[in-house]
């Protein structure tokens, strides 16, 4: 889609303006505050129903309804209308939007095109066509996460980020559930071990414990552990304990288990395991990228199988030396396997510690419950405080990489948690107190209550096992869901980012080929962010704002935006608006930007604003914009908005003035146009102008300098043709020089007619159309000497190593060699 006509009523600083871009590039230049950006805002509003400048960070209380319309007008008077051209649609389409109903776009088109037009305008609504300097810096001067958000928003892939985030939440919830169920399961295992007095849960040991106790009660041995069969076929003894399910044999066993934990050799083992665990955790934590790489293992393995025979990358077509890409991927895979080995060791060590500590937790839990039942509260708080610390440690051991307090606690402190000071005395006091309150149990009663407890333990284990297995499956699924999404995302986006990166590098090199021929860049997703690094003169890659100048950063932002917008707009929206985006780029590189715009984007329609007249002229010299689409905004005031004038020789307007016999106006337009035109010619031919301390030059300076340089270069071209023995060319050049001199002489006779005050002196007022028309023609002819008849661009002098090389136009139709053949 391109804009053919644009009409704006009462938007921002404009009361009324009508422009005719005709689907071509448009450049608006003028001082700050001349109303240029209001045109940009109007186009932005027309296409999207919003004004980007009034939105986003730092815009506070600004609103479209209050600040979109001209200050003297209401929203219903703020209207933008345009005629646009849409491929595959016959004739222009008229669209119109009013600030009273910003969401409503009026479209006037034939019924059969309605869908296509609406589809195109919906596409335009995304607002990817506008780049301001403020936006431009967001690509460069920002942290990876914000850059990713900005680029994702531009690529309309923020949804991918939202899905990733939902999957991450799912994965985290699944992990939390898994860890909670794991603790319950391990505690249930620990409770069985506490009851049986074993360190590790082995079925035969549990069965042995059950059958031994069944033997005391005349029961037959059982060969399977089934909770509701443990106490079947037994003689139940008379319970002499005043509290159901409590006897000293069991509490003694709990205390005995805890005392065993306190033994030095047990503590030394805890110390040793904990030491090893914290070492491996520290190693893994040192390289956080490793865990991210693990999620891409499958991608790397798949990628290895897909590498083309010539060794090139199948995703981005990048050339690699034979075997180098395979080696690169193998290194990555090896690194992941190394990471996995460490991970396995970490899990083994933490699991071992969990088993040991779970027994403490279970025994403490039984003891605390018994103390509650018998009403013995004296030492209960000490045991509860011990259990709380044990539980905390258990929780961190269940997610060691994320939670284990490697820095906060050393192994000695962990040892103290497992075996607090003076706890042995407390345990003996508890034992004594319980023996005083509970009568000694008979061996039968001891056996019965032991079976009671193991039945409860096994029931708890069975139910926790079901939950644990479900949580394990849930966690596994959530991980697979997330990991596969990351692999899919990276596969698609890596290829996309790679194509953007390659285009970005090409565009940037086109701008900075003189100083950064070997420039390279990296653009890759990293977690939720997007890493963007650029080469700095062969000294490695760095963030774009780290070492490059502001001007280079602006170039990068511009090139990255162009590379992105090509992916985005798919030739559906061809309008690209650049609002004062080259402020920090120097004149020489602006020239390169102009060339880039002219040559690399043949199907785009650029709408460019700038406060820099020289850059506006450069855009014209490079052929980005023609005279009719180069507009100066000036003398802005609230009531009338900007005055527009075409900042070059607009022959049609001069002709119109002549037709209406408005000779002073025609003379004014001619002089003003010529002044601008010959300033540009001087730049293009590198003509020398006498230095002026007040930095002000006029037509009297530019015109003779341009003519003299032009004739000098034609003479050089003739000398060159002679040296190469090109007789025909020499003859042509002699003719050209003679004709040029003749044309130039015509204007010399008329130069007085375009002096600075001609439009207001009496001659101007008394002069007729017949008097002035030959003067206009003479200058029109002289202007034609400096430009190509084919492409309309100015002839430009090229130097190589500071020596004259050629005089040529942009399309190559007119080329004069200036090099002399060496003898």
């Amino acid at each position: 889609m391109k804009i053919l006509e644009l009409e704006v009523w009462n938007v921002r600083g404009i009361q009324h303006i009508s422009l005719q871009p005709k689907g071509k590039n448009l450049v608006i230049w003028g001082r700050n505050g001349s109303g240029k950006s209001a045109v940009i805002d109007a186009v932005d509003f027309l296409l999207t129903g919003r004004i980007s400048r009034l939105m986003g960070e730092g815009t506070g209380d600004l609103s479209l309804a209050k600040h979109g319309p001209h200050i003297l007008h209401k929203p219903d008077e703020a209207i933008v209308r345009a005629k646009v051209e849409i491929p595959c649609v016959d004739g222009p389409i008229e669209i119109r939007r009013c600030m009273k109903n910003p969401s409503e776009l009026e479209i006037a088109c034939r019924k059969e095109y309605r869908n296509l037009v609406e589809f195109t305008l919906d596409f335009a609504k995304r607002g990817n066509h506008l780049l301001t300097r403020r936006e431009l810096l967001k690509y460069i001067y920002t942290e990876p996460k914000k850059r990713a958000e900005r680029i994702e928003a531009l690529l309309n892939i923020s949804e991918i980020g939202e899905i990733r985030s939902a999957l991450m939440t799912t994965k985290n919830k699944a992990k939390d559930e898994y860890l909670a169920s794991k603790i319950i399961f391990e505690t249930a295992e620990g409770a069985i071990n506490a009851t049986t007095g074993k360190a590790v849960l082995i079925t035969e040991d549990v069965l042995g414990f059950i059958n031994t106790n069944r033997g005391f009660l005349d029961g037959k041995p059982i060969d399977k552990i089934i909770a509701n069969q443990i106490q079947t076929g037994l003689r139940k003894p008379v319970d002499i304990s005043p509290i159901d399910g409590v006897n000293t044999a069991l509490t003694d066993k709990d205390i005995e288990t805890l005392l065993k934990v306190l033994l030095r050799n047990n503590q030394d083992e805890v110390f040793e395991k904990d030491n090893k665990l914290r070492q491996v955790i520290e190693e893994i934590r040192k390289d956080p990228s490793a865990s991210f790489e693990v999620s891409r293992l499958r991608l790397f393995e798949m990628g290895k199988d897909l590498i083309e025979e010539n060794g090139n990358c199948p995703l981005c077509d990048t050339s690699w030396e034979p075997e180098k890409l395979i080696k690169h991927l193998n290194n990555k895979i090896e690194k992941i396997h190394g990471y996995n080995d460490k991970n396995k060791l970490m899990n083994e060590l933490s699991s071992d510690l969990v088993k040991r500590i779970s027994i403490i937790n279970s025994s403490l839990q039984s003891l605390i419950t018994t103390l509650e039942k018998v009403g013995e509260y004296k030492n209960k708080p000490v045991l509860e405080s011990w259990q709380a610390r044990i539980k905390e440690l258990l929780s961190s051991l269940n997610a060691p990489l994320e939670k284990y307090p490697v820095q906060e606690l050393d192994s000695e402190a962990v040892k103290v948690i497992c075996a607090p000071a003076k706890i042995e005395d407390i345990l003996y006091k508890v034992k004594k107190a319980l023996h005083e309150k509970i009568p000694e149990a008979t061996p039968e009663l001891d056996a019965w209550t032991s079976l009671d407890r193991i039945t409860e333990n096994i029931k708890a284990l069975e139910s926790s096992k079901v939950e644990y297995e479900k949580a394990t499956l849930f966690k596994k699924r959530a991980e697979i869901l997330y990991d596969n999404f990351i692999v899919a995302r990276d596969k698609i986006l890596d290829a996309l980012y790679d194509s953007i990166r390659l285009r970005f590098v090409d565009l940037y090199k086109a701008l900075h080929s003189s100083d950064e021929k070997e420039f390279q860049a990296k653009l890759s997703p990293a977690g939720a962010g997007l890493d963007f690094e650029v080469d700095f003169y062969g000294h490695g890659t760095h963030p774009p704002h780290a070492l490059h100048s502001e001007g280079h950063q602006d170039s990068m932002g511009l090139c990255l935006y162009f590379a992105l917008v090509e992916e985005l707009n798919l030739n559906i929206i061809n309008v690209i608006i650049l609002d004062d985006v080259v402020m920090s780029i120097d004149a020489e590189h602006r020239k390169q930007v102009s060339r880039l715009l002219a040559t690399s984007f043949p199907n785009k329609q650029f709408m460019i604003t700038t406060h820099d007249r020289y850059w506006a002229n450069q855009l014209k010299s490079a052929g980005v914009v023609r005279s009719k689409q180069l507009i100066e905004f000036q003398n802005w005031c609230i009531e009338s908005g900007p005055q527009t004038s075409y900042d070059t020789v607009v022959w049609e307007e001069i002709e119109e003035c002549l037709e209406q016999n408005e000779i002073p106006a025609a003379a004014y337009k001619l002089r003003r146009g010529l002044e601008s035109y010959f300033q540009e010619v001087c730049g293009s031919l590198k003509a020398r102008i006498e230095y002026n301390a007040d930095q002000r030059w006029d037509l009297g300076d530019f015109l003779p300098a341009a003519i003299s340089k032009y004739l000098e270069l034609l003479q050089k071209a003739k000398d060159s043709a002679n040296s190469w023995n090109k007789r025909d060319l020499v003859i042509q050049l002699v003719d050209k020089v003679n004709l040029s001199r003749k044309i130039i002489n015509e204007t010399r006779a008329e130069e007085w007619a375009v002096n600075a005050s001609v439009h207001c002196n009496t001659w101007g007022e008394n002069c007729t159309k017949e008097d002035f028309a030959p003067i206009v023609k003479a200058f029109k002819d002289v202007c034609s000497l400096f430009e190509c008849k084919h492409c309309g661009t100015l002839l430009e002098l090229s130097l190589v190593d500071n020596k004259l090389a050629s005089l040529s136009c942009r399309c190559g139709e007119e080329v004069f060699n200036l090099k002399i053949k060496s003898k």
Partner: protein
Amino acid sequence: MEKEAQNHKPLVEQVVDEWLYALNREEGFDDKIIMELKELSKNSGIKEADRLIEAIKPTPGVKK
């Protein structure tokens, strides 16, 4: 032009298609789960953790 845009599927759809295709080959992901995820991907359900959890969480008593 419309065809060009249609051929150029939105990136989010490309990623989701690739993802579902990969899940199809994973153990523990039967057709029912894949179908549920496909349904969620047709609307904003795919962006809601609660709906994702509902789709993949083993239900008590039901072997899913």
